[in-house]
């Protein structure tokens, strides 16, 4: 009976590990320099930059 319990627990642990590994996780590299903000003199300058 004890062996059956150990086997069942081991199997559940194995299934949980597989399940967690299959989940997607997206790592975001949002490391940015300090004062990382762009500054424009005018709206026109900004529009020229993004066109």
């Amino acid at each position, binding site marked *: 009976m004890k062996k059956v319990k150990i086997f069942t627990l081991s199997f559940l642990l194995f299934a949980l590990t597989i399940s967690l590994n299959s989940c997607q996780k997206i790592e*975001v590299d*949002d490391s940015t320099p300090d004062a990382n903000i762009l500054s424009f003199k005018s709206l026109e300058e900004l529009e020229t930059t993004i066109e």
Partner: protein
Amino acid sequence: MSDDERINWGKEMNFKSFGTISKTFFEGINFDSIKSIEELKALDKDDKYLNIFKEGGEWVFEPKELNSLERFVANEDKLFIIDSNVYKLIDGGLVSSDIKLIDELKKIRSIDEASVSSSFSINRVGNTTFKSILLEEHTYSDVSWDKEYKIKVWIQTENFWAFNPTRTLRELEFTITNYKKGILGWYSKKLPTTYNIYLETYDDYASEVGLWIEASASMHDIESYNTYRRTLVDPNGWTNKYNPVFSVIRVSASNGYASTYAVN
């Protein structure tokens, strides 16, 4: 600016924009294996990069601020500076404040939240329930025969508050977005797109505020493409004297799988 030009520009400036961060995040998601909205939301716990909404009863997934041109000049907090003011992108809208209030603006999460404080100016409304501008808009879309791909063309003409200095502008704008079907719904996808679009807005009482926009391309590799034209309606502030309406609509767009047409 093409994707490659923008990447090189970012490197030269030592700048990583919100647009680049959210685009990279979005492209890392395998929409063909995600089985629940909860699983998808768990990838973006702080709700920073992923836009999830329902359209016509179906789920649609896009990178946040996909249709905001400023996303590639805004920083990771969606902020940029013009002159002595700081601006924040929020759900397609744009809110500004004096640069001294940058920390307060950084905390603002919605256009509605900004609208109740005199410290902030709302420069563009975007996708919120808060409406104070005049507009006419239409959406045209088509799905491929095997229901795997979709193309959507959104057109709009509006009068809106401009900023720095405050004045009323008329804008004519369109956005083309391509989608692919995932297990849960449609996700935006880069596809070679051919389009020919002509839009015109004309006011019988004020021809000087009339506008037109013409754009065409063959096999333009786009996930979403947005462009606009503007003209001055009133240099002294807000006016609703001239209603923006479309006088001509000619839309034709195809991504090789789905095609949409509209003529008025």
